[in-house]
């Protein structure tokens, strides 16, 4: 069938850019490779030009995809799959990187940006560094090719037409219309991603991932040239830049989870979160080892190991999230696009390349003449890097269960209580790292007098002890592990503050590291307080005893709120006031109140947790949080009925005598007397009718009396009919259906509408104390890191 209105040109343009990007990354890698091998500037020029064309093509790809999404060309599979007409334009960026293809494209784009900067700034390292970057780009762009090699599809192309991707759609009625493009709508963006955090978090994490390429390319270049040391100096600022960017990106993911996922916290040890944290930890290790290497000439092997491992872990993170292997174990990984093999090959290539090059060169690494002293900065920095490595290994290994299961056919599943499991391991690591962060600044490279060290930290240690005791008493924190962590994190903060004020005289110059370490200490304090002291204040108030099942099942975390009822919850009185629908959202109004001096309830604040209704991807609950400087009150809906319940009608027959009582669910009625001449009340009756009324007095729950008089009528004395009476407010209707003159019994039918079901919500409310310390810590740490990088660049 010939279709009209398809925008074919732009797709062809996208494909052209893809092929050019692929071909020229290959050419650039090869030319730079030859330039290095043959030391020929002609090849260097070819490499440069090829990388330029490659870069422009990648920019072209990004532009084309944006234009497609922006103009809503739903005849393209990617656009159809990730956006629709209902979606607000501000989320257009989220659509772009919702899919595997888009996120690869952004990653490739960041590599291009970094590559362009490096090409001009690396100087004599240009040929090997750019050759590595070019070859990484070959793998990256291959993920977007979508061409078939025999039966294997290489990559997934974002510029594929919908009908090509889904040939079966041709039989659908919509595609019998030649101008289907005018009516087709997209599938829409996952509601979880329709969030402002999602506009910035993914590209930032991807930028962080991308930065790992720079130290990696330098390190490989160093091994390649057998020049093991000179590359480190220019690589240091890049590594710390990466630490800052990736760290911010990862923590921003935490902020997203906290603000708009109903995880109930900022970190859930979800595999996708873990896979981004693992390379960050090794990257921090690599950065610090490079500092040791520069200052003392030791740890050469470790520098190479950590730098290459960081890059491989970034590739591994992408493998985990994009291959679909996490499937069951993560809430937010991508779906399998059949690229698992390709991703594994790409990962394997860089792992093997790194291992082989390190092994071949290892013997030639410069050896330190004498062993470092135990009272030296480099020794403890080295230990710190090792702890970070162990920490990242523990997280990485546990996150890799799905991969281990795939390879070895085992059936390990992550521990059900992930938080407990990871925290138990990571807390000791955090304590050790915090202590190292606190003390190492005061150690000099080579050798320090232990007494000087002691004198330097004694003040900070005393202050930290006081803080720890204050927190322990004030927040009734008794767990010795928590108190130890509180102490070490406070020490990390105060000792670095002390170092900045006393040793650096409070000058900003050279203070980057101290500031970053202060931020790190604050971050740990914030994590500890907000996590360990968080309190679920919503509790099951029902009488149903669930404790018989043991503590494991005592999930006493949700509260049921009937509309307009006020219940006590923690220090507050809460009331669910009602709901408001707005497009795809249902907002629930929950008022938090406290009694004032007169004992009257006064509103303190109102929260609007909401549900996002999405017919395609399911309903999603999103929290609403009240922020105070010292604590947050976080509320989210765990259950609500979206559709109003229909009141069911109950019908019941009663055969009673005069003076009897009929009971209904909400009232009772007494059959007082018979009215033998009810005609005047009912206009419909004719003089020929024979009518009898049954007089009832009905009492409702408020013991209000109502009069009811259903009639039994013999029309024209021939056939029986009834005239029912009702009280609509109570949902009660009664009809008089017959008389048994012999037994003097009367037959009535009572119709009772179930009382209108009251609206209710089930919600969870958690107090997170001190979570602002965490966010402040993040910001301070990031600022310090960038500042350290800046001053290092200015010095050189």
């Amino acid at each position: 069938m010939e279709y009209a209105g398809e925008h074919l040109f732009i797709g062809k343009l996208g494909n052209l850019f893809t092929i050019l990007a692929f071909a020229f990354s290959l050419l650039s890698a090869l030319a730079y490779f030859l330039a290095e091998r043959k030391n020929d500037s002609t090849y260097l020029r070819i490499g440069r030009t090829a990388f330029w064309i490659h870069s422009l093509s990648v920019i072209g790809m990004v532009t084309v995809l944006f234009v497609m999404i922006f103009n809503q060309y739903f005849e393209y599979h990617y656009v159809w799959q990730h956006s629709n007409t209902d979606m607000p334009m501000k989320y257009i960026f989220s659509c772009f990187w919702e899919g595997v293809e888009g996120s690869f494209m952004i990653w490739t784009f960041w590599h291009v940006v970094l590559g362009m900067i490096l090409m001009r700034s690396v100087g004599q390292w240009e040929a090997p560094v750019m050759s590595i970057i070019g070859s990484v780009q070959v793998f990256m762009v291959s993920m977007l090719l979508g061409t078939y090699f025999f039966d294997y599809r290489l990559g997934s192309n974002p510029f594929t037409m919908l009908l090509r991707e889904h040939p079966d759609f041709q039989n659908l009625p919509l595609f019998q219309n030649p101008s289907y493009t005018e009516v087709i709508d997209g599938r829409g963006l996952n509601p979880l991603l329709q969030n402002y955090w999602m506009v910035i978090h993914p590209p930032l994490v991807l930028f962080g991932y991308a930065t790992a390429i720079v130290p990696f390319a330098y390190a490989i270049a160093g091994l390649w040239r057998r020049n093991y040391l000179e590359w480190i100096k220019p690589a240091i600022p890049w590594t710390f830049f990466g630490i800052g960017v990736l760290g911010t990106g990862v923590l921003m993911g935490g902020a997203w989870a906290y603000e708009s996922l109903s995880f109930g916290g900022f970190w859930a040890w979800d595999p996708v979160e873990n896979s981004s944290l693992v390379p960050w930890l090794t990257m921090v290790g690599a950065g610090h080892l490079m500092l040791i290497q520069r200052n003392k000439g030791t740890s050469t092997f470790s520098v190479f190991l950590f730098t290459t491992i960081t890059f491989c872990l970034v590739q591994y993170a992408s493998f985990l999230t994009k291959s679909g292997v996490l499937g069951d174990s993560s809430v937010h990984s991508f779906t399998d696009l059949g690229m698992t093999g390709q991703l594994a090959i790409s990962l394997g290539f860089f792992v093997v390349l790194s291992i082989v090059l390190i092994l071949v060169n290892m013997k030639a690494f410069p050896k330190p003449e004498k062993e470092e002293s135990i009272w030296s900065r480099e020794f403890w920095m080295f230990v710190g890097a090792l702890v970070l490595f162990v920490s990242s290994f523990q997280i990485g290994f546990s996150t890799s269960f799905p991969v281990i299961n795939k390879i070895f056919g085992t059936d390990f599943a992550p521990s059900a209580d992930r938080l407990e499991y990871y925290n138990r391991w990571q807390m000791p690591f955090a304590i050790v790292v915090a202590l190292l962060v606190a003390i190492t600044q005061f150690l000099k490279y080579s050798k320090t007098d232990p007494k000087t060290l002691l004198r330097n930290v004694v003040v900070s240690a005393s202050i930290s002890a006081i803080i720890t005791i204050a927190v322990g008493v004030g927040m009734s924190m008794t767990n010795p592990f928590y108190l130890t962590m509180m102490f070490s994190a406070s020490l990390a903060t105060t000792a670095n503050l002390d170092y900045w004020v006393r040793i650096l005289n409070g000058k900003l110059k050279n203070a980057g590291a101290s500031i970053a370490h202060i931020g790190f200490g604050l971050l740990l304090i914030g994590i500890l307080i907000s996590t360990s002291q968080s309190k679920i204040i919503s509790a099951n108030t029902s009488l149903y005893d669930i404790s018989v099942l043991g503590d494991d099942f005592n999930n006493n975390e949700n509260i049921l709120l009937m509309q307009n009822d006020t219940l006590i919850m923690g220090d507050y009185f809460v009331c669910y006031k009602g709901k408001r629908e707005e497009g795809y959202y249902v907002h629930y109004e929950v008022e938090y109140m406290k009694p004032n001096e007169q004992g009257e309830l006064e509103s303190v604040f109102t929260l609007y947790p909401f549900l996002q209704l999405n017919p395609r991807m399911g309903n999603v609950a999103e929290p609403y949080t009240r922020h105070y400087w010292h604590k947050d009150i976080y509320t989210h809906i765990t259950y609500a009925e979206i559709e109003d319940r229909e009141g069911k009608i109950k019908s019941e027959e009663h055969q009673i005598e005069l003076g009897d009582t009929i009971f209904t669910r909400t009232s009772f009625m007494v059959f007082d007397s018979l009215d033998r001449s009810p005609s005047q009340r009912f206009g419909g009756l004719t003089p020929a009718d024979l009518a009898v009324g049954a007089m009832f007095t009905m009492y409702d729950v408020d013991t209000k009396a109502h009069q009811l008089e259903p009639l039994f009528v013999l029309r024209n004395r021939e056939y029986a009919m009834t005239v029912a009476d009702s009280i609509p407010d109570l949902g009660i209707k009664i009809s008089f259906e017959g008389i048994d003159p012999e037994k003097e019994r009367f037959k009535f039918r009572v119709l009772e509408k179930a009382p209108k079901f009251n609206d209710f919500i089930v919600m969870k409310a958690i107090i997170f104390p001190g979570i602002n310390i965490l966010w402040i810590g993040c910001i301070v740490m990031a600022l310090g890191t960038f500042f350290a990088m800046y001053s290092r660049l200015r010095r050189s």
Partner: protein
Amino acid sequence: MKKTHIALIVVIAILIGAMITAINDSSSYADFSEAFENPGEEFHVVGKLDKEKEMVYDPMTNPDLFVFHMTDINNEEHKVFLHKSKPQDFERSEQIVLIGKVENGEFHANEILMKCPSKYTDGEISEKAQASL
């Protein structure tokens, strides 16, 4: 012996420790029969919601209990008790993973993971709202 070597040995010891505890603390994927043979032990049971059987969620009495029937991969069906509120959109789930254990001959779960219909296989096509009028 060099200090670095001591540090490395300690590191390797912790690495091995981490691996062993990771495996020890792990739960495992299983079917109902295995879970019922080992009461008190935690398992991840993969299965499907039985939509024919009744689902009971009565937040009035207990907002933290949801009872339904699940059929595991071997078509074995059991009544299960989820000690959480009923997940939103539960009826639409395609596959569920229950994390829990058998107590008193009943399967009690603390945690549930749901897989909703994949957006890639669903062949539904929608039209723009105004255009279809």
